[in-house]
C-alpha cells in the first residue's frame, strides 16, 4: 500500500495513513548527462530514516546504473574489479556481488528510468554511489550523505568589499586608509579577484551571518598573505603576517541566534595570493565563506563544485575520436585515438608508433579544457601498455641481440624519420604517414572484437612503399620475457609508471614471421605487416 502511494508521490508530499502517521517523502531525481558519462547530481543529503523516492533517469545513449554502497567502501575499485571476470559480470548486468552493496537500480537502458523507493539508513555517514558498468565508475560517481553532519550552514549576505592599495608586512588599520575602490560582492563569497592587482593591495569584506541558534561557532581562516576574521567587531581568527596559506587558523565564539556582523581583513604583499575562510556550527558542518576552498576542506559540506580535472570524458561511439594533447606517456607529439571496441592508443609523431595503448574508456579532457590547458592527463581507461618502448624508434638495420635499439634522446628529433600527417577514411579511422630512409610508411589501427572481453585485439597494419633498406627490421614488442604461445607471444614488458600509477605492461602480441632476439620481438620489414596486441584478462590495473 505504502509503496503504491509513493510511486505517485510528488515531493515534498505528506502521506497520511490511519493512526495519524505522517511521513514526508523526499523525491530526488538524478539524471545522466548525455555523452558525458556523468550524473547531473553528485552529492545529495538525506536525513536518517527519511523516506526517499529516487528517480534515476538515463538521458545518455548507453545503459547506466546506480549502485549505493556502505560508508567507507571504495565503490570505484569495487566496480572496476568486475573487469577481472567480465563474463560473469555481464550475466549480473554489472551489479557487483559484494556485501557492501546497499542498494541498486537495474541497468537502465537509454532514455528510460528506474525509480528506487527506500528509507534512508538510520546510521549517519556518506554512502558512495557509482555506475558499475565497466570504465564508468571513475567519473560516474557521487555521494549520498545521511545525517545532519553534512549539512551546510548559512552563507554570508550583503557582502561588500573595499579595495586598498599599499605595501604592508602586517595588516594595517584599514579604517585610517582611503579605499581605492569599493562595491558589492554579488555572489556573497569572499574572493580575491578585483581589478588586476596582483601585489600590494588590501581588502576588507563586510557582511552579515545568521547564526541558526544560540551556541558556539568556529571560524577558520588561511591566507597568503595576512588575514583575520572579526565577528561583531571582535577578532575571532587571526592569520596575520606574510606567509603561505598552508596553516588553517581557527577561533571560536559564542553567538546568540540571529544576525551578526562579519568582517574579514586581508592584505597581499607579493607572490602567491590566496584566501580561505569558513565557519562551523553545532548543527552544521564546515561551510566555506570564500569562493576558493582550502585543500584541507575537501570533505566539508560545500556547494556542488565540479572537479576541474575530471568529468569531461571523450566517449567513443561509432567513430574513433582523435585527441592531440598532453597525454601522459604519449610524448610531446602524441595523438590520442579512442577506437570503437574499447581500446585506445597514443600514437607518437616523434617516436612513430603507439607509445602507449590501453583499454576501457578513452580520455577525460577536463584537465585540458578547464583552466589553461596544462598538465599531463592519464588515459581514462586501464591496463596501459607500452609495447615497444617509450622513446624507441620502430626500425633498425641488422641489429644484433645485444645491440641497443635505436632511440631518440628526449627533446631531440629522430634524424632519419619525418612525420607526414594522417588521413581519415570513410569510417573516420586515421592512417598515420611517415618516412624512413626512403620508405614511405602508413599505419592504421582498429579493434577486432571488444578489448574488454577476452578475445578483443588491437590490430596494427603497416604498409610500406618505396625501397626498404636491406636488413631492416621492425620491433613490435620488447620485454624481459617473450615466450611463444598459441599463435603469438606472451610479453612481460618493462613496468611503466604514469603520474605515479604503476602498470605491469603484460600483453600478448601476434605477428607473422616474428623472431625473438634478446629482449626484442622483431619482424623483417616487408610491404605489409599486421600486428595484433591483446590484453590477458588476468587482472585490470586501474587508474583511479
Amino acid at each position: 500500500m505504502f509503496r503504491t502511494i509513493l510511486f505517485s508521490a510528488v515531493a515534498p508530499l505528506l502521506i497520511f495513513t490511519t493512526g495519524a502517521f505522517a511521513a514526508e517523502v523526499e523525491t530526488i531525481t538524478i539524471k545522466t548527462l548525455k555523452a558525458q558519462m556523468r550524473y547531473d547530481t553528485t552529492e545529495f543529503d538525506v536525513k536518517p530514516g527519511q523516506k526517499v523516492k529516487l528517480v534515476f533517469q538515463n538521458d545518455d545513449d548507453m545503459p547506466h546504473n546506480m549502485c549505493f554502497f556502505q560508508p567507507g567502501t571504495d565503490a570505484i575499485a569495487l566496480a572496476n574489479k568486475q573487469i577481472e571476470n567480465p563474463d560473469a559480470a555481464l550475466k549480473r548486468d554489472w551489479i557487483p556481488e559484494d556485501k557492501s552493496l546497499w542498494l541498486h537500480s537495474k541497468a537502465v537502458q537509454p532514455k528510460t528510468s528506474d525509480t528506487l523507493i527506500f528509507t534512508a539508513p538510520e546510521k549517519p555517514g556518506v554512502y558512495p554511489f557509482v555506475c558499475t558498468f565497466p570504465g564508468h565508475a571513475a567519473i560516474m560517481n557521487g555521494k549520498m550523505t545521511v545525517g545532519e553532519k553534512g549539512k551546510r550552514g548559512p552563507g554570508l549576505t550583503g557582502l561588500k568589499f573595499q579595495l586598498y592599495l599599499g605595501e604592508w608586512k602586517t595588516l594595517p588599520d584599514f579604517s585610517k586608509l582611503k579605499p581605492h575602490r569599493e562595491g558589492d560582492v554579488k555572489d556573497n563569497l569572499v574572493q580575491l579577484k578585483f581589478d588586476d592587482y596582483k601585489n600590494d593591495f588590501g581588502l576588507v569584506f563586510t557582511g552579515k551571518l545568521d547564526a541558526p541558534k544560540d551556541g558556539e561557532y568556529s571560524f577558520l581562516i588561511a591566507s597568503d598573505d595576512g588575514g583575520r576574521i572579526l565577528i561583531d567587531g571582535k577578532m575571532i581568527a587571526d592569520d596575520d603576517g606574510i606567509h603561505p596559506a598552508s596553516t588553517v587558523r581557527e577561533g571560536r565564539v559564542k553567538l546568540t541566534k540571529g544576525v551578526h556582523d562579519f568582517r574579514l581583513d586581508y592584505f597581499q604583499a607579493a607572490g602567491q595570493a590566496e584566501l580561505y575562510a569558513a565557519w562551523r556550527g553545532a548543527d552544521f558542518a564546515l561551510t566555506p565563506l570564500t569562493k576558493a576552498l582550502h585543500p584541507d576542506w575537501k570533505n566539508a559540506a560545500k556547494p556542488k563544485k565540479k572537479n576541474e580535472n575530471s568529468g569531461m570524458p571523450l566517449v567513443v561511439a561509432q567513430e574513433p575520436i582523435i585527441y592531440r594533447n598532453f597525454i601522459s606517456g604519449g610524448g610531446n607529439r602524441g595523438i590520442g585515438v579512442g577506437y570503437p571496441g574499447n581500446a585506445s592508443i597514443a600514437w607518437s609523431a616523434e617516436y612513430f608508433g603507439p607509445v602507449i595503448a590501453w583499454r576501457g574508456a578513452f580520455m577525460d579532457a577536463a584537465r585540458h579544457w578547464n583552466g589553461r590547458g596544462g598538465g599531463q592527463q592519464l588515459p581514462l581507461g586501464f591496463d596501459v601498455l607500452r609495447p615497444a618502448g617509450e622513446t624507441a624508434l620502430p626500425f633498425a638495420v641488422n641489429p644484433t641481440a645485444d645491440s641497443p635499439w635505436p632511440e631518440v634522446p628526449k627533446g631531440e628529433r629522430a634524424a632519419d624519420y619525418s612525420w607526414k600527417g594522417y588521413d581519415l577514411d570513410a569510417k573516420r579511422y586515421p592512417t598515420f604517414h611517415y618516412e624512413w630512409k626512403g620508405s614511405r610508411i602508413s599505419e592504421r589501427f582498429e579493434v577486432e572484437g571488444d578489448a574488454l572481453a577476452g578475445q578483443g585485439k588491437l590490430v596494427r597494419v603497416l604498409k610500406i612503399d618505396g625501397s626498404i633498406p636491406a636488413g631492416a627490421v621492425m620491433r613490435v614488442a620488447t620485454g624481459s620475457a617473450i615466450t611463444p604461445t598459441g599463435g603469438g607471444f606472451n610479453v612481460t614488458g618493462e613496468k611503466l609508471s604514469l603520474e605515479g600509477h604503476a602498470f605491469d605492461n603484460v600483453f600478448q602480441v601476434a605477428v607473422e614471421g616474428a623472431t625473438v632476439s634478446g629482449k626484442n620481438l622483431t619482424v623483417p620489414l616487408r610491404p605489409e605487416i599486421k600486428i595484433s596486441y591483446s590484453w590477458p584478462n588476468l587482472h585490470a590495473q586501474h587508474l583511479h
Partner: protein
Amino acid sequence: MKTLRILTGLILATATPAMLRAADPQESDYYKITTFDTPKETAFEVSSIELLPEGKLAVGTRRGEIWTVSNADSEPANVKYQLFASGQHEVLGLAFKDGWLYETNRYEVAKLKDTTGDGRADKFETVCDKWGVSGDYHEYAFGSRFDKNGDLWVLLCLTGSFTSQTEFRGWAMRVKPDGSLVPTCSGIRSPGGIGFDADGEVYYTDNQGPWRGPNNLGHLVPGSFQGHPGGNKWYEKAPNMGRRPVDPIPEAFQNGRKRGDHAPHTDPDRIEFERKRIKELVPPAVCLVYGKIGNSSSFIVCDLSGGKFGPFEKQLFVADQSHSNIARVFLEEVNGVKQGGVFPFLKGFKSGLIGGRMNEKGQLFAGGSDRGWGAKGGQPFSFERVDWTGKVPFEVHAMHAKPDGFDVTFTEPVDAKTAGNVASYTARQFTYAYREEYGGPEVDEVFPKITKATVAADGKSVRLTFDKLIQGDIHEVHFDGVRSADGKPVLHPVGYFTLNEIPAK
C-alpha cells in the same frame, strides 16, 4: 486607431532617453556588436578565424576544433556551423590557400582538406613540424596567414613564457612553401597574435613580462631582435641570422638608488638607450599601455575594406583578451623605424578576445574565451561580429610626429575655436624600464607643455607644438576640450603615441 495611438505613445516614451543620449555619443552609435549563438555541443572558444571562399569562415578553437561557419555575414539566425576537424591541439592560426586550410597547432603547421565533400576534413598533411615542444602548456604557437611572399609565420612562445627549453622558443619563424623553417626574428616573449599592415609588413603583439614593460605591437623585421633575450641561445642554430646580439642590461639602478626612486632619463635600462648598443633591437612600434589599452594583447586585423568599416582604412585593430576590447593603431615610419599611436576603439565584447578577422564587406569577426585568464567580458567564450553603422565618429584619425610636436588629423571637421586652443589639450610623457624583472610601472613621467595648437586650412587637422619631445617616450595626449564643428566631443579623447624617432622635418 486605438492601437496606433498606443504605439505612438510608446515611441514617445522611449524617444526621450534616446534623445538625451544623442548629445553624448557612444561607441555603439558607430559600431554595432552582434553576438552569435554557437553550437551547443561545444565551448566555442574562438582562437583563430580565416575567410573561406563563398563568404564562409573557418573558426579554430582552443579545444582544437575547426568549424566552418556559413552566413556569418548576414542575420545571426541564418548562421550555420559545420564541424570540419576536431582533436587538434589549440588551433592558434588558420590560413586558406588553393583549396587547403592551413592550421598552426601546438607542434606543426598542417594543411587540411575535405576530399569527399561531406564537410569534414579527411586529409591532415604535415607541412612543417620542425620546432621544439617540451610539454609545457605555455609553449603556444601562433600562426599567421600567408604573407606577401607566400610564407607562413609561426610565433613560438617561450617555455612557461619565461625560458627557452626547446628549439626556437622565443622566435618568429617562417615556414616556406617547401616546408622548411627559417628563423626570422628573435626576442619574442609571449605572443598573442600576428598580422599584416596594408603594405604586408608583419606585426605581432607581445605581452607584459620580463623584458617587456607594457604589452606592445612589434614590427617583425627579418633579422631583428624583439627584446627578450631568453631564446637567443638558438642563434647557434640560425646561421642565417648572423651573430647573437649583445645581451641587454638585466637591471640598472645608478648611484645606489632603489626601484621607484625618481631619476628620469638617466637609467640605461631603457629601450631608447639599449637600441643604440644592441643594433638588432627593434623598438616596439606601439606600446599598448598596460591597464589602459589592455592587459593581454591578442589579434591584429588591418582594415582593407576600402572604407566599409568606417573612416579608419588601412589602420590596425588590436584586440585584448583581458579587457575584452579592441584598440585602434595607426603607424608611420621615421628614419626606417615604425612608430605610431594607439587609441581605445570598442569595448563590450562578451569574452576575452583571441581570434579575429575582417571580411571584404568590412565586417570584423572576433571571438575568444576567458579560460585560464580572466576577461572583463564575463562569458566563458564568445563569437561576435562588428559592423560599422555608417555614422562617422568624431575621433582622432591619426597622429604624425613632427620635429616639435604632432600633426593630428580628425575624422570630421573640428571646431576651430576649441581645437585651436592649447587649453583643450593636455599631455604626459613616460616610458617603461627595459629590464629582466616582470613588467614594471610607468617611469620617467614628465608633463610637457603644449605651446601652440594650429588648425590647418582643411579644418580637419591640428598642428600641436610641444615645448619638448622625448625620444623613446610614450606621448599621452588628451583631447578633452576639442569639439567637432557640430559640437561633439572626441569619442575616445586620449591616445598614446610611441615616439621611437623624432623626424628632422
